[in-house]
């Protein structure tokens, strides 16, 4: 059983109460159907209330939930076939990033996914979903083949961040991530990046240069982990909840800021309550975008991906060169320019 999250408790208590009433009614032969129906109705409302207006920190908890489906849970729902290809051809096979060739609705695609473990043993194997440079270099190798063979690329993001240890530093973690960014910007094939759980900073972004960026409903995509942010800003990692709010990293925020293109609905209560339905919905949204993108010419796909990236960023630009910096600054609020 999953550990209940704090904010789920009122709902769980209510559901428990309904169960008790049902049991009592059956044992004693007393008709409590009116009361039970009322409570059930109340539960549905409560559920919608809770999951409909989750706070950023609550989203973080769902996105990191130990029972949240990982790539392997979705693979059979999404693909008719998946052939996993391993290794960077240089140093190692990193289990925190999985990739290969798959058949998606009859179309061969290249798939790259970050994978967290389901238990301690698997987490050690997969370094808790934090890839080393060899993981990103494997991803790069497989994406190069996608470009060569004109295959769409589907990436699935779920990482607390790139591995941070001496080994990662020695083998060029920065270089490995940067190479992914450069390469993805240059491809002529459709790329769809989906944030499936945690979208942890540069380690997530390395797979995030899509024509389309999807985010599952209860995920976040952040420049920094909320704990690290709190630790740096307020010298207090326990203020992670405030940081979570300040960072504006939920799917809705990312949509508003021009990074995410669509939010993929999760079953009520989160993907871990019903991986099958979550997978089906994801497949539906992926297919919709992929069939649209496959209609585009390669050079157009590349240009549009560039245009999307190019437009990300909000700043103010002085329109007349003779205008002084200070004047502009005082007009900041009236004059915000969002690049397109």
């Amino acid at each position, binding site marked *: 059983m999953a550990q209940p999250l704090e904010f789920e408790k009122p709902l769980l208590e209510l559901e428990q109460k309904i169960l008790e009433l049902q049991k009592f009614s059956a044992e004693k032969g007393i008709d409590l159907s009116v009361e039970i129906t009322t409570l059930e109705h109340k539960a549905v409302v409560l559920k919608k209330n809770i999951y409909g207006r989750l706070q950023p920190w609550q989203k973080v908890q769902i996105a990191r939930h130990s029972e949240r489906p990982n790539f392997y849970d979705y693979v059979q729902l999404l693909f008719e076939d998946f052939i996993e290809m391993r290794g960077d051809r240089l140093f190692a096979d990193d289990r925190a990033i999985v990739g290969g060739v798959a058949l998606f609705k009859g179309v061969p695609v290249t798939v790259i996914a970050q994978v967290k473990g389901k238990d301690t043993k698997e987490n050690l194997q997969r370094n808790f979903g934090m890839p080393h440079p060899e993981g990103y270099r494997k991803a790069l190798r497989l994406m190069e083949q996608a470009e060569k063979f004109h295959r769409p690329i589907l990436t699935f993001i779920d990482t607390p961040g*790139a591995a*941070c*240890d*001496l080994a990662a*530093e020695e*083998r*060029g*973690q*920065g*270089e490995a*991530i*940067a*190479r992914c*960014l*450069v*390469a993805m*910007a*240059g491809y002529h094939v459709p790329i769809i990046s989906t944030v499936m759980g945690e979208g942890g*900073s*540069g380690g997530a*972004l*390395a797979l*995030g240069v899509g024509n389309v960026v999807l985010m599952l409903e209860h995920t976040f*995509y*952040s*420049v*920094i982990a909320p704990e*690290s*942010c709190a*630790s740096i*800003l307020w010298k207090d990692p326990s203020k992670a909840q*405030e940081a979570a709010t*300040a*960072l*504006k*990293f939920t799917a809705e*925020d*990312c949509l508003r*800021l021009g*990074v995410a293109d669509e939010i993929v609905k999760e079953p009520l209560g989160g993907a871990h309550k019903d991986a099958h339905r979550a997978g089906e919905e994801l497949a539906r949204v992926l297919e919709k975008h992929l069939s649209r993108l496959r209609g585009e010419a390669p050079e157009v796909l590349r240009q549009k*991906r*560039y245009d999307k*990236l*190019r437009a*990300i*960023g*909000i*700043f*103010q*630009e*002085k329109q007349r*060169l003779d*205008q002084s*910096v*200070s004047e*502009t*600054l005082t007009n*900041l609020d009236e004059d*915000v320019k969002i*690049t397109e």
Partner: protein
Amino acid sequence: MFKDIFRKTKYVTISSVPAPRRLAPEAAPETVMIRKELPDGLWVKCPKCGEVLFTKDLEKNAKVCTKCSYHFRISARERLELLVDEGTFAEWDNDLQTVDVLEFPGYSEKLAEAREKAQMPEGALTGRGVIEGVPVVLCFNEGAFMMGSMGSVVGEKFTRAIERAIDLRLPVIIFSTSGGARMQEGILSLYQMAKTSAALTRLAEAGLLYISVLTDPTFGGVTASYASLGDILIAEPGALIGFTGPRVIKQTIRQELPPGAQTAEFNQEHGLIDLVVERSQMRSLLGRLLRYHQEGAGYGSAVRI
């Protein structure tokens, strides 16, 4: 407050260069100012060897310790002065201003402090200059501006500079010093990594040279984007360069990095950097590299398929 920012500074007027061809009107070079930054005291202690150095001597030696060659951090404008042929630099986009889009707690105040401290509107300096006779597009992080962190403005300025280099068919040199992506602009900062890298994809496809110079310190999202993407990677001696800082590594996985880890020399030994170059040699080296990579210098005139 902001009106006073540039008041305390001495200015040296650098004459403008002719407007380059195919440049968008808003990118037209202007007459720009190069600030002479002067340390406060008369002398300073070298953090490496402990030697007490006269500020004047240190200044004359490009802020390199005269005893142990320790490279003090210097500002973007100081670097610029050490590099370009006199009177050749034309700054671009110094009118881009930061917006606190996320209304992030304390960001506005931090920005104001940073502007005061760095005496620049944002932590990036870009433009066109000439090094030993070769025209080049130059980008600098300013370390004094919120640790040289990259938000929307830094990303945009660098991206525009790279795009203009493509239009002008000029090589690009970026001097990095940064703590990484700026957290106060959230996901927008993160995607500046992708944006600048995408511009570099186009630069590379245009066959143009990109030299990345990593200076102390360069970390995080900057290492994981443009700073690592040079055709040639150069670092200053002793500069700390890495993806994750030693303190975060210690906090996260309780691993203590060995002495010397993440220095320029460590990075070179691990194959991640081409050259470790003293500040005093930088201009001459860049000049030679630029000349050797000029179009037609070698075999370049022949038509490619």
